[in-house]
């Protein structure tokens, strides 16, 4: 993330914070709002929130790290959530997670260096009848199998190459 992006984010958060009362009870909704708009909680965001509510930064961190929802690193363009609920576990959810990890060369909770993909393990997305399940970019993929993992990632890669080629083409024609 470059300075310009961070600056824009800070500005946006500052404006949004005006909407919230300076009440400790608003802390979780504020963090949720920031994550929804910026996909993760940057250290600067945490400081801004602490300043707004008049509580120490460590308090905000304490709350934010307690809950599974909050992320502290920017996710990839394609965010992959692998469900490890009971039904998915019984049907081999960990094998699916492992396949994603191996295929992308990152562990759960990490983002690929090119910021294309990130993996997250989630407790249950509530689609147990379709186990094992992965959620890729908000689309629930039921009945996952290692071969399906390959197919999904290959699909994204082909799409990216196609986009790149088109970009180059349009750049060349201009």
């Amino acid at each position, binding site marked *: 993330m470059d300075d310009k992006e961070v600056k824009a984010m800070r500005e946006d958060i500052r404006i949004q914070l005006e909407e919230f009362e300076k009440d400790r009870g608003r802390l979780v909704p504020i963090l949720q709002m920031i994550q929804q708009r910026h996909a993760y909680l940057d250290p600067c965001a945490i400081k801004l929130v602490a300043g707004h509510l008049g509580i120490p930064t460590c308090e905000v961190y*304490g709350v934010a790290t307690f809950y599974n929802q909050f992320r502290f690193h920017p996710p990839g363009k394609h965010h992959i959530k692998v469900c490890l609920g*009971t039904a998915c576990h019984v049907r081999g959810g960990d094998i699916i997670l492992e396949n994603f990890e191996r295929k992308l060369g990152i562990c759960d909770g990490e983002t690929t260096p090119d910021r294309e993909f990130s993996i997250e393990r989630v407790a249950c997305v509530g689609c147990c009848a*379709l186990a094992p399940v992965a959620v890729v970019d908000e689309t629930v993929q039921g009945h996952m199998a290692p071969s399906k993992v390959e197919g999904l990632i290959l699909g994204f890669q082909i799409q990216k190459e196609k986009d790149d080629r088109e970009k180059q083409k349009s750049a060349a024609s201009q």
Partner: protein
Amino acid sequence: MRLPNSKNLNQDFNHIRDEAKRRQLSYREADGPRIQIGMATCGIASGALETKQAFEEILAERKIKGHIRTVGCIGHCYAEPVVIIDHPESGFPPIFYHNVTPGKARMLVKAFLEDGDPIFEHVLGAMSENDLIPSVMDFPRFNQEKRIVLEKCGHIDPEDIYEYIAEGGYETLVTALRMEPDDIVEEVRNSGLRGRGGAGFPTGRKWKFARTGESSNRVIICNADEGDPGAYMDRTILESNPHQVLEGMIIGAYALEANKGIIYVRAEYPLAVKMVSRAIAQAEELGILGRNILHSGFDLDIEVFQGSGAFVCGEETALIRSIEGCRGMPHFRPPYPVQKGLRGHPTVVNNVKTLATIPPILSQGAAWFRGIGTASTPGTAVFSVVGDVVHAGLVEIPMGATLRTLIFDTCGGIPNKRKFKAVQIGGPSGGCLPAEFLDTPIDFDSLTEAGAMMGSGGMVVMDENACMVDVSRYFLDFTQKESCGKCTFCRIGTFQLLRILERITKGEGRDGDLEQLMLLSEDIKKGSLCGLGKTAPNPVLTSLRYFRDEYEAHVIEKRCPAGMCRALTAFYIDLEKCARGCDACVGSCPVEAIFTTRDRKKGVDQSLCVKCGECMVACPPEYDAVRKVSPPTLAPLVERPNEG
């Protein structure tokens, strides 16, 4: 409390109800076929959006004037996407179709809507009794259920309050608003309703208790923080019929004289959050919620709070802390939240299903409710039955039915002719019950006695391929991560339990491990404050009690009888059966561990194999050459020929 003028109340509501009935009638009497698609999360995950789009396109293309209506989840997750087509001109009753893909949707429009052929091979059943098609009510999955909470789920559009009202919704609220709050509490107490969140505390008693304390600023909270991995009843109810929960909550608030309500929903359930928020807005618009509800003089403001995903926040004191903007850590009770809860005010926390049961109880009476289920636990139980079971999904059955009826009759038993091994009830706090306990009646006391617990309604059925040690390890892994860290025994004890279990599943079990597990489990139970720690060792204790031989096989023989623990299994290819020249398994292997031997058969490189089992799926059934063995030393060694 001043009782409202009943005449005004009636008039107000009659207008709304007339409008609802008018809308229902105009829909029913409209020309053309009516297509109803289930669109809750599970339906969407199975492709209901694509199916809906296919219907829209083909109807437009064929110039058929049809009506597409989206409803919630009917609970039959195995059959999603579910479509019900009502085509009166064809002479058939409304028909229930299962697994409707976009292709099937196009076919149905052409064959059924245009040519009047309902295509029998895709029909699950008719929605009403008739002479042409067997009714769905002939199937055990339908007729053994007793729907009180789920009654309207999957039949009404959750985004339209009028649909709920047309089906008799909010009428109980009107009746309740004319009653004395104490009488409502008394009625709920008489019904014997016990909280459906898991602990089974009598709801009426909780309410009465709350009424005895300080009277100002009471709060009612609907607990929809469904953290149990493998359970999704609350989500489905909120997505498919949010108004029934809302109605129960308004009645509850009136009975408690609370003016503030909070629905605590997991943020991981975006559709449920959307549906509930919309339901609240619609109810406010019609004056059913907000200031001076239906001119009764009673005010109630309900807001949605999104839970950020912490299992422990299902515990009421932790939930309250979380709303206050703190880490969701439970605190000692007493004082109970009903005395001193949210920001120090008396707070009643009720589960989604508990609140959704309130309107039926008040409309049909406590005696009616007592007539369902058992004496100690009247009413029904809503389970999400998942795992190795044929008709997975949401099931609502009367309390007291046995596990056997539920799993084998209602849900169709175990698929693929495998044997039943265990059923896990109550999620991470519950336990695994073996086949001997299949005749246990389902109610709070019987299940607790057997070592499991009712829980909020998650039920995972496991066949013979499930390893009990691995399942215990899985749950411990979950509770260990979710432990809030307040109590030492829960924080460190679960970590140690997990370490031992991990060792055992890796084949590094030692003498005395099992005794250590027992000792530690008892200590964690004693040394923890809240339900999470008190019940965290349950999966270990029950599986040790009922499946001790499996643990011993792991520890002593370093063998996993079910073949689930990957460190203790190996895959190999039976050279007798392997076909020369077939490459199916090679292509399926994600790590290129399968190689071709000199005589063009296949071998597995054990050092590369990750034991995902894909080769076993890929191997054509006529060869069936891939074998799984435990312990791994049983796999014959096949050498990889030197390259070139």
